[in-house]
């Protein structure tokens, strides 16, 4: 447990394969215990001060920064032997990035993996919250590219720190005002700014507006990790998450009237458009959450629903 990670990595020149975890001589969860402690401390602070961005010593990871290294560090710092991990990228368990991250977590811990939220305890995600309702058993870990909600209106880090410290969010409101003036509607989609626990504004990045209401008074813990920007923040269970919205301009989620998933027929889930191609012709819509879509088809056609 206490051998430095670097030495372990040097000793293991062979690439990680699908060997059973017992064969691996890396530490449980890849990170050394000192790194885990550092990250856990940051997480505890983040949970104690909902929405506050806690700086932490972001480690070099076996994925490039900006490719989920923040979420990965949180996952590996909180994972225990009894956990079951699910990793999604854009709602899809089979995305290249999701597969690689899941393989890394599983191979360095030996814990089981799953695609259904029902069976999972740790859900690492980029861009989505699973369609299924999550509860106390779940910890949602989000990979965050840009943790600073005010980055678009101010670049000076000291000024940003001051604005957060004094809850001075007037310029965030101005950016929403300008958006509405220029476009007639609020066009901001992913990373919609939300006020957490009536105090800090966070970037709910990078989930779509569709998922934002599900963070409000949620039963699960959400941890946001930005590896490149070295920040961790959290939304604890049963915490207010209010999207910044003018009183006379209601908050709306993305809905395209009439759109239906081509695979399962759902119009109740978050749909993404598949553009038209020369081979297949006109564009269509499919569920973003591929696992939910699969189970939805299964419910409708129990005999053949298992096919992709």
């Amino acid at each position: 447990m206490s051998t430095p990670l670097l030495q372990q990595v040097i000793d293991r020149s062979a690439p990680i394969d699908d060997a059973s975890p017992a064969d691996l001589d890396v530490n449980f969860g890849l990170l050394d215990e000192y790194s885990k402690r550092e990250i856990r401390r940051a997480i505890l602070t983040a949970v104690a001060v909902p929405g506050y961005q806690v700086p932490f010593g972001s480690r070099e990871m076996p994925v490039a920064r900006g490719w989920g290294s923040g979420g990965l560090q949180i996952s590996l710092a909180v994972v225990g032997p009894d956990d079951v991990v699910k990793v999604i990228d854009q709602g899809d368990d089979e995305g290249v990035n999701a597969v690689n991250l899941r393989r890394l977590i599983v191979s360095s811990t030996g814990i089981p993996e799953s695609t259904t939220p029902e069976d999972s305890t740790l859900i690492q995600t980029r861009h989505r919250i699973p369609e299924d309702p999550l509860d106390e058993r779940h910890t949602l870990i989000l990979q965050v590219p840009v943790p600073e909600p005010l980055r678009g209106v101010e670049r000076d880090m000291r000024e940003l720190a001051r604005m957060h410290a004094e809850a001075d969010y007037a310029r965030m409101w101005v950016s929403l005002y300008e958006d509405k003036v220029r476009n007639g509607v609020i066009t901001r989609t992913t990373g919609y700014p939300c006020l957490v626990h009536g105090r800090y504004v966070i970037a709910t990045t990078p989930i779509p507006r569709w998922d934002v209401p599900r963070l409000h008074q949620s039963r699960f813990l959400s941890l946001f990790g930005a590896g490149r920007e070295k920040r961790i923040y959290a939304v604890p269970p049963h915490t207010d998450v209010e999207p910044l919205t003018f009183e006379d301009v209601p908050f709306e989620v993305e809905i395209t009237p009439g759109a239906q998933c081509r695979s399962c027929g759902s119009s109740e889930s978050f749909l993404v458009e598949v553009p038209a191609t020369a081979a297949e012709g006109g564009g269509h819509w499919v569920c973003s959450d591929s696992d939910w879509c699969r189970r939805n088809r299964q419910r409708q056609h129990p005999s053949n629903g298992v096919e992709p």
Partner: protein
Amino acid sequence: MNNDWALKVASLGKIHGITDLRALEDTGPDIGTAKSALTGSIVAAWDVGFEVAPGEALGVIGESGSGKSTVMRCIAGDQSSTAGEVYLRSVDNGRTNVLDLDPSSRRRLRVADLAVVYQDPAEGLRLNVTAGGNIAEALTAAGWRHFGRIRDRAAELLERTEVPLSRMDDLVGTFSGGMRQRVQLAKALANEPPVVLLDEPTTGLDASVAAGVLDLIRNLLEETGVAAVVVSHDFAVIEMLTTRCVVMNHGRIVEAGLTDRLLEDPHHPYSQRLVGAARA
């Protein structure tokens, strides 16, 4: 002077460099310098005091380097002061020295208690934001959250400061100097602050535009009943806007009185030179 003031400044002072009060002895109008030969410090302002009543405009006049902008920035909170007291009637009914407030509370005064109009509109405005957005910043800082009402209020303010409503949704950076200054006025007045500080509000504008902006400021001061401090090196501005003024030289007030009297009959040699130069 009676008790009916909106802004009261007492013994305000700012020393750049080491804070050694011996510097006061070899600086000032009588010595003819603001830099102390003894300590090397610069006494930018010392023992500055005045009161401004609601609806009254007080002028602060002097040549560049005389400390008038320092005084304004110390009141506004843009600069820390070395000594002195500043009271606002709207803060704790004038019993709290706002210089003693922590920086965060101090900045909060700028939302609705104290507005500043700078010589350079870029200091008071965001040039990459629309005119309406700039006013929205002041309103949302004061807690406005209703888009329609923010729009209406911004339009009303721009109308009052004579900015064409057709330009409301254009970036301030595309505006002329005179129009930027009008937007800055609109933003400053957005939350109806009881005190407004104007730092060389028309310097840098050409004569005809400056006359228009001056006219506007005078009307606004009359209509709104705010207490105003007008800092300027230009007697024409002081004469037009203020009833009382103080003359500053090398960081000290050398003369104070009614503006008319001061222009007709300046007592202090420096005031006489200043008026003489303006009349020439």
